């Protein structure tokens, strides 16, 4: 495969040009907001929203041009490195296929709605403008990530979305918990990123390019024999053969998957996502539910063709574990957003598992439907929090001294009467999340579950029943979804409003409770509509009719050991047999889940009556759920173990070594005594004589200085003093200023060089 053909420039066409504009627009919004004055805050937020609305139209035109079309790819040579025997060409470009188009639409559309929602939600925040500028920046880099055609660019934007996410989690950085959560998210993500980077380096070492389409072709032409992975690169007449052990493909796949685990909060790197809820709620909707956390799944889809076949199993297991553990975690939370955060983890687990079991298109489908209904849930919870916040604020305005958490579900209840729009949005998206027929989540989740079960059946054909554990756990998690979402829905929207009965001060809280403003209702209703199944399939019972699934189709598998054609054919045939069974199972499990939730959490149960005063979890199962399987404690005990070890060795040192030291000190003292007596006698006399000579010399010098030079120099001295003062005045003791001055002078010198 000749490298020049592989990496030749591809000109821009109308679709990619528009896509470039789609990225540029939010970035422009970011710049505009950063540069504009503080007084224009109202105008700027509306302008940012307007630009994003414009972007929706642009994106729609891109998707219109690219959907179900041949891949649109524009690429240019970014820079070249001349190595000894190979011309390393770094390219940069845009690639739009169906997956990209879907992601574009999801990101831009949800970003627009979040912008709209935030206008009123963030009203009154002192950093209103910073908030909107960061939203713009996030949208720009996320879109760039989605459009990038090579791993280097993806990595760069991957880091950037992580960075903006860090800034937004820590948006209220004066709160200790917020800045801690931001740091935690940042650090945990670094672990994953190391993996991603290692994977990139291995691929680079083998292919000498990071362009995904080039890698795909090279991968298709590479050979695996005798446990070795051979890639032949050609440049002109030269050809280079890269040979390494084929286990490196496994390592590369695992490394890339580690990156996915970090970004998409997979077990065991999932502990950061619940904490990330410290950020503003619309941000949670955009970044930590719909788009950024799904970037991991997106990356997995992009590199799926080279993922080693053995690693598929790892992906499936990690995914289903995450789905299950996340669902368990959602059970006992009191914070309305934490429940949603755990459910996000769980749903991401479904997507990743879907990838692992070969339900590629189903996983991406779930990514899309999940993005809409989860964003809806988050925005609706934002509306609830906003309303609760208003209630508390009004009570405080009355002069009541209360400091309560507006996100705590224990103070909610019965909100459906006062907040009907929010309630209907919440209800619809909950049904979608739980996988109830007619709603979008049903189609995608059903597809994933069918895929998982048929995968287990195909794999277990050799007699390994253990494969069935994956779909079993997945079905359990699906049922639990209905259970914890039912619990949340009942606790928040049904029953009685609990806050007034908390104490005397909150008695008239009910009168302040009201639904949110129109600017917040519109996004909610839009997303509610997006949660209906008919939008995705003409017959909302039959996932086979979903236009999305057929548009994505089957992925390539270029890693050795599996023939993609027979594999997917087998899966498809099994799915055909199992589809009715899975349909029935899903419906029954979801209904069971909701039924259980109703029995336990409806208005009259003892749980609900005492919920206001419910404290920390009591039995071990509740604790496991509430503390998210004690993952944080496991992390901490790692650190603590190391500290203990250090302490222990320190004590060991002390005991054993003290004796030796005493001896050394004694010897040392003797030596010093001897040396000092020698010094005293011999050297003192010598130096005194020398000193006297020098005093005379010194006197002489100073006299000359004073009487001969002084008169002549006093004018010069004044001038020099002045210059010195000038130089000194740059020196104010602030290191930022030093750096600034250095850069200013650096640029001055460069300007001098250039002109």
């Amino acid at each position, binding site marked *: 495969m000749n490298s020049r053909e592989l990496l030749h420039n591809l000109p821009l066409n109308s679709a990619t040009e528009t896509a470039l504009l789609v990225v540029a627009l939010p970035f422009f919004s970011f710049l505009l907001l950063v540069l504009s004055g503080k007084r224009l805050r109202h105008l700027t937020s509306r302008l940012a929203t307007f630009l994003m609305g414009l972007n929706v139209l642009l994106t729609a035109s891109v998707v219109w041009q690219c959907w179900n079309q041949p891949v649109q790819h524009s690429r240019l040579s970014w820079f*070249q*490195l*001349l190595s*000894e025997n190979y011309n390393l060409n770094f390219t940069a470009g845009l690639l739009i296929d169906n997956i990209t188009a879907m992601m574009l639409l999801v990101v831009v559309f949800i970003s627009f709605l979040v912008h709209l929602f935030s206008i009123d939600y963030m009203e009154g925040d002192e950093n209103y403008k910073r908030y909107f500028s960061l939203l713009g920046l996030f949208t720009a880099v996320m879109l760039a990530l989605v459009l990038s055609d090579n791993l280097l660019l993806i990595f760069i934007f991957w880091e950037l979305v992580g960075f903006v996410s860090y800034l937004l989690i820590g948006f209220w950085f004066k709160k200790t918990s917020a800045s801690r959560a931001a740091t935690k998210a940042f650090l945990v993500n670094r672990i994953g990123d190391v993996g991603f980077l290692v994977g990139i380096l291995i691929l680079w070492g083998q292919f000498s390019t990071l362009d995904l389409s080039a890698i795909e072709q090279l991968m298709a032409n590479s050979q695996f*024999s005798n446990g*070795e992975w*051979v890639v032949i690169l050609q440049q002109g007449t030269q050809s280079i053969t890269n*040979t390494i052990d084929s286990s490196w493909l496994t390592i590369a796949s695992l490394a890339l998957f580690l990156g996915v685990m970090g970004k998409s909060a997979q077990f065991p790197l999932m502990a950061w996502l619940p904490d990330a809820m410290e950020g503003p709620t619309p941000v949670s909707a955009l970044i930590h539910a719909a788009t950024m956390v799904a970037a991991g799944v997106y990356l997995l889809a992009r590199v799926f063709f080279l993922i080693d076949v053995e690693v598929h199993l790892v992906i499936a297991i990690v995914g289903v574990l995450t789905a299950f553990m996340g669902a368990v975690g959602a059970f006992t939370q009191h914070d309305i957003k934490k429940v949603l955060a755990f459910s996000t983890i769980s749903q991401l687990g479904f997507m990743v598992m879907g990838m692992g079991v070969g339900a590629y298109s189903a996983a991406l489908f779930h990514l899309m439907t999940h993005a809409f209904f989860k964003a809806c849930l988050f925005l609706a919870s934002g509306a609830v929090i906003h309303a609760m916040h208003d209630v508390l604020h009004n009570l405080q305005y009355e002069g009541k001294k209360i400091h309560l958490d507006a996100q705590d579900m224990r103070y909610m209840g019965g909100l459906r009467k006062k907040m009907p729009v929010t309630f209907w949005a919440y209800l619809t998206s909950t049904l979608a999340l739980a996988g109830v027929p007619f709603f979008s989540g049903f189609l995608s989740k059903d597809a994933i579950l069918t895929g998982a079960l048929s995968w287990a059946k195909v794999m277990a054909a050799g007699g390994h029943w253990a494969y069935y554990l994956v779909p079993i756990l997945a079905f359990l998690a699906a049922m639990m979804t209905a259970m914890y979402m039912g619990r949340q829905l009942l606790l928040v929207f049904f029953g009685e409003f609990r806050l007034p009965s908390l104490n005397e001060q909150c008695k008239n809280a009910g009168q302040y409770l009201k639904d949110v403003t129109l600017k917040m209702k519109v996004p909610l209703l839009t997303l509610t509509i997006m949660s209906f199944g008919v939008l995705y399939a003409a017959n909302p019972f039959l996932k086979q009719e979903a236009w999305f699934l057929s548009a994505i189709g089957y992925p390539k598998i270029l890693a050795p050991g599996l023939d993609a054609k027979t594999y997917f054919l087998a899966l498809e045939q099994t799915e055909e047999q199992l589809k009715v069974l899975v349909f029935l199972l899903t419906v029954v499990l979801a209904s069971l889940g909701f039924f259980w939730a109703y029995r336990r959490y409806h208005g009259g149960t003892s749980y609900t009556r005492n919920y206001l005063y419910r404290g920390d979890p009591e039995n071990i199962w509740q604790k496991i759920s509430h503390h998210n399987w004690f993952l944080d404690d496991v992390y901490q005990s790692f650190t603590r173990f190391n500290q203990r070890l250090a302490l222990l060795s320190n004590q060991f040192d*002390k005991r054993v*070594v*003290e004796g030796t*030291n005493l001896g*050394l*000190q004694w010897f*040392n003292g003797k030596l*010093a005594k001897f*040396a*000092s007596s020698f*010094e005293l006698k011999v*050297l*003192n006399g010598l*130096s*005194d004589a*020398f*000193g*006297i*000579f*020098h*005093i005379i*010399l*010194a*006197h002489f*010098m*100073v006299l000359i*200085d004073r009487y001969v030079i002084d008169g002549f*120099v006093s004018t*010069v*001295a004044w001038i*020099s*003093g002045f*210059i*010195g003062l*000038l*130089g*000194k005045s*740059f*020196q104010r*003791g602030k*290191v930022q200023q*030093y*750096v600034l*001055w*250095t850069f200013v*002078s*650096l640029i001055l*010198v*460069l300007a*001098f*060089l*250039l002109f």
Partner: protein
Amino acid sequence: MFENFDYTGLNATLENVLGSVAQLMPELLLATFILLLILIDLIFKNTPKSIFSIISLLGLAGVLFFTHRQGNQLTEATALFGQMLQLDRLGVILKYLFGISGILTVFLSWSKEEKDWHEKGEYFALVFGLLLGAFLMVMTTNLLMIFLSIELVSISSYILANFTQKRKSAEAGIKYLVFGATASAVMLYGLSFWYGFSGTLDFTSFQFINGLQSAPQLPVLVASFMVFAGLLFKITAVPFHFWTPDVYEGAPTPIVALFSVVPKIAGLGLLIRLLGISFQQNILWSESIIWRDVLGVLAILTMVVGNFSALWQKNAKRMMAYSSIGHSGLFLAGILAFSAFGIQSLLFYAFVYMLMNFAAFYLIEMVEDKTGKVMINDYQGLGLRIPFLGALFVLVMIALTGLPPTAGFTAKLLIFSALTESYQEVQSPILLYLIITGLISTVVSLFYYLKIPYVMFFKGNAEDSLKMKLNVGNKVLALLLVTSLLLLFLKSNWLTNLIDHINYF
């Protein structure tokens, strides 16, 4: 297709590496001692500082011995590790200088009170680390090695600057770190451009020279200046000098003495190598843009800012910081002579500068150690109370100014002669300006250098002065340093013989 692995290449590489290791004894010894010092600190918790000092002295003596042997065996420049490093006269001479500086630092640290010291072994290990970085810096011919060695020096420096963990010291450390990281980033960016243009890391190779010559000129110039920026930071040239006074003021005095000599001279050595090669191969030298002008202007600015700002300083260490900036200007001027004589004078100057600076800082430290004072005004009457100390101060300050009868004079004379010679040859006006600025700043420096002896002898009286006593060890070391300054004035050929035959232009 799969069987034709080429093992000869790998074998040759391995042999080259093994052969190179044998030629790298001083550096290996330094690395060994870093580990040794840390291990001793870890295993024997309460080892007194003097033990560490003695071990360090032994190690440094060994390093000097091996460097000496290296110098004797050296017939021509040898490439090590496949052109990662190059062993030649310039490197050996500078390694001598670093070794001696290391020994002096250990001596200076000797009298520091124990209570300020928590991690004694680490202190010495870090000094060794800094020295190792400097050793590699003056030997490297590889872009990556440039960065690595500079970072080795820098990172050791950041920690050392912050070593006593007092507030001032910590502030100094952080400032140094922030500024240094910025400079490193700029330089690394420039290096990456160089690599991009040429596709090789070996900056002595034909491919590198060819690559830079065939690349468009403008980006090459910009990239080159970025690389030089990193080095200018190390030699504290304007406009990369801002960190110097704050760091010198805050860091422990022996470390300041080390900072003012080793990283600076190492940076100069590297600059000589880089500029020398580019000058010979005519890479960065074109009709329209002359580096001599750019660097010359910076050198002039450095002399002006250093010397003139020093006039206003009241803190002796801060004054020395500006003084060392001033000296850097003259160092740069020495390089810009672009002649063998210029380099030789520069090396002579470097040796003398090392002695002067260590002497000056040692004297300042003696006062600081015993009384805690570093402000020049606190020295009132001290010269009358301890004439010995006063006399030493006078001599050192005279040497720093560059007046006879000290080696400081010889050094400046040599630099100015080299500049004049070059000026007569190429008639470049910038050289003339350099000479003039150098002379003027020498006159200016007289004022602030002699301020210390002036205050010591003519302000206040002996009774009210600081109460301190010198012990014999102090006296001997100070005397040795000052005597060497006088001796090198009288017998300058001792040193010049050593640095003969160095020719980079």
